[in-house]
């Protein structure tokens, strides 16, 4: 396939994944705010709602235009603000542009799924969406992302296009999981403080829900929510679809199918090996955040190498 087409398919999947991550993040933030902001010693609404802005690197732009953090403003900004390149609307617009550029390679199911999603959201403005309906919108968006993946895996031929879509999706997903984990405040043990324990429980739950891994945690560990275990689950557990290990495994598989001698595959392999061998306790000793940010950098490197290996034919 054309290098440019591969690039567009890669980014189409990546952008849709980004939409889903953003939506999940906003839903989890809402949940977190609902459960913990009023609790004693909680972070407060402002701190909780600043999280999505910090994670997406949009704090400065947000403050410049919205001035004050509140749930409504952050939702308006992150969902439907076309001037925010990280908003769901903007990212969806990009995904649709990518799809349009490769319309001829996509099945009608994929195109129509994306196009309909876009048509439903393109003229939507925050002021016209009822406050109570926001949760429904978010849920609907999550469903559309699932539908997109269903269309992708259910209708596309098992060929290059699908591999590039796969890689785009899992690189984005791994990056998001790593950043979300890295963005967690450093914690000491909760000790016996009942309120702190309660808070850790709710925050942990919000984090797991944001990554769709709450059930996975419950099924894996017969214990209370504990941040150490959450990190272990989301970093090392290959069976969890949003874990770093799960993502890098998929990237390696797809790259191998594309070209077993590509430079990008070598880098991905090394990263996979690192996750296979690392011990979470040791990582925590030297700092989880540094480990995660380094992981993100490696993903960026793989992304760049994929560009060179497949998309920038001279």
């Amino acid at each position, binding site marked *: 396939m054309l290098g440019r087409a*591969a690039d567009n398919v890669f980014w189409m999947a990546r952008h849709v994944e980004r939409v889903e991550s953003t939506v999940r993040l906003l839903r989890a933030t809402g949940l977190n705010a609902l459960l913990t902001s009023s609790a004693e010693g909680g972070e407060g609404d402002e701190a909780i709602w600043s999280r999505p802005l910090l994670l997406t690197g949009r704090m400065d732009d947000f403050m410049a235009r919205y001035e004050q953090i509140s749930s409504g403003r952050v939702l308006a900004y992150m969902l439907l603000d076309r001037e925010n390149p990280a908003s769901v609307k903007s990212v969806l617009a990009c995904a649709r542009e990518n799809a*349009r550029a490769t319309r001829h390679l996509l099945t009608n199911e994929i195109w129509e799924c994306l*196009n309909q999603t876009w048509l439903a959201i393109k003229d939507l403005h925050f002021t016209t969406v009822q406050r109570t309906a926001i949760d429904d919108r978010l849920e609907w968006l999550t469903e559309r992302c699932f539908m997109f993946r269903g269309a992708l895996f259910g209708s596309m031929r098992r060929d290059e296009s699908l591999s590039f879509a796969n890689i785009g999706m899992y690189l984005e997903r791994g990056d998001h999981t790593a950043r979300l984990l890295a963005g967690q405040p450093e914690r000491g043990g909760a000790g016996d403080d009942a309120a702190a324990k309660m808070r850790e429980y709710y925050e942990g739950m919000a984090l797991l829900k944001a990554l769709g891994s709450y059930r996975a945690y419950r099924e894996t560990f017969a214990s209370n929510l504990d941040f150490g275990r959450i990190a272990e689950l989301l970093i090392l557990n290959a069976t969890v679809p949003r874990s770093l290990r799960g993502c890098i495994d998929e990237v390696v598989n797809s790259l191998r199918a594309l070209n077993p001698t590509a430079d990008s595959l070598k880098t991905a392999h090394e990263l996979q090996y690192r996750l296979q061998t690392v011990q979470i306790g040791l990582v925590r000793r030297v700092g989880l955040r540094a480990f995660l940010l380094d992981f993100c950098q490696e993903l960026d490197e793989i992304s760049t190498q994929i560009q060179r290996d497949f998309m920038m*034919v001279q």
Partner: protein
Amino acid sequence: MSETAFFDEMHSGGGVRAPYDRYAAWLHSTPVETLKQRHDQANSLFRTVGITFNVYGEDGGVERLIPFDIVPRIISAEEWDIVERGVIQRVDALNAFLHDVYNDQEILRSGRIPPELVLTNDAFRPEMLGLRLPRSVYAHVAGIDIVRIDAKTFYVLEDNARTPSGVSYMLENRQAMMRLFPDLFAAYPVAPVSHYPELLLDTLRAVAPKEVEDPTVVLLTPGQYNSAYFEHAFLAQEMGIELVEGQDLFVDDGDVFMRTTRGPKRVHVIYRRIDDDFLDPLTFRRDSTLGVAGLMAACRLGRVTVCNAVGGGIADDKAIYAYMPEIIRFYLGQEPILKNVPTYTLRRKKDLDYTLAHLPELVVKEVHGSGGYGMLVGPAASKAEIEAFRAKIVAAPDGFIAQPTLALSTCPTFVEDGIAPRHVDLRPFVLSGQKTTVVPGGLTRVAMRQGSLVVNSSQGGGTKDTWVLEKPHARPRR
């Protein structure tokens, strides 16, 4: 309103014309609300599929739907027979003409066409002189715009031998109609059109450079902001070929390659949907970023076939149009099956004088204009508009032709207050490769405004599905 002045496709002489008999009965028994419902359904269908065209302007371009009318235009097998034979004859003559003017120029020496009309014409491309093309075909895809004025008379209004568009609407309109009105298709023997992409691919493969056994065909688009991008993507998808932009191609050692994920891949046939001027910055416009540097070399070396060939514009030039009957006689030795609209060439003094004296009755077109821009429809124009246009003509008469206003037939059309007659034309798409073929049907364009004779989509025209009825005996389904 009066329906008497124009020939109507459905009603004539107070009765229903034969091809419409069952349809008319259905239409009259169907409540307007149902029609409205189907109409809305059609719109949402088209939006979902993304059959839009891009309009430039505020907000960096908006995607619009071309109005689709749910009332089909129905053509009997006998009527289609005339149209089919007529357009094939016409396109065969066009291709023979193109081959001649770029090689031996017999027609110019014969005096049938004033040589300067060709040689000094901007649409004539000396870059093509002396080049032999596979099967001597230049206009691989041609769209012939036809209007009808009475039961038997069809006129060709315009030939399109460059990069005619609209075929995706022919195909998608049929898809939509089959979904909206399955019962009607069960009752009517409508000839299928959906094999067009396959015929197109056959055509393109048939003109690949000689030595190539399994040619790689690509569709070259200006990109997704082009107004016809949907059609480009649609055709590429249907044919299963790559949709490329200029930046995806390069020329090395006289061969054309595309940049794929597995390295350069040789390309043999380019179905291009960009204009001549942008094809090769080393030959045509230097500032073009849409084309491929070196393409003309590859083309003249016979390493790649560009479809339609460069320079086809001389065949659909409005100044040449007037000579089409002569061209058909000269190359085919036949009388034209379809009529030519009498045309006044304003570079001729006599024609100019006549035209200036009869502006309110005439249609005046720019020789190089297209898409319904830059034209005067005398009977529909205000006095001021006519005077403004008169000044333009006097300033540069060479740039214009004039034709009598034709009484374009009307076809019942669903409009806001129910069903009303609107003027229509018909663009069948003719393919020339191994042989010249046309799928039974085409794009029926309809002027949505009451009384308007301009059917171009850029001027608010809509489209209809075109049903060609099969002869009772033969019914090969694809």
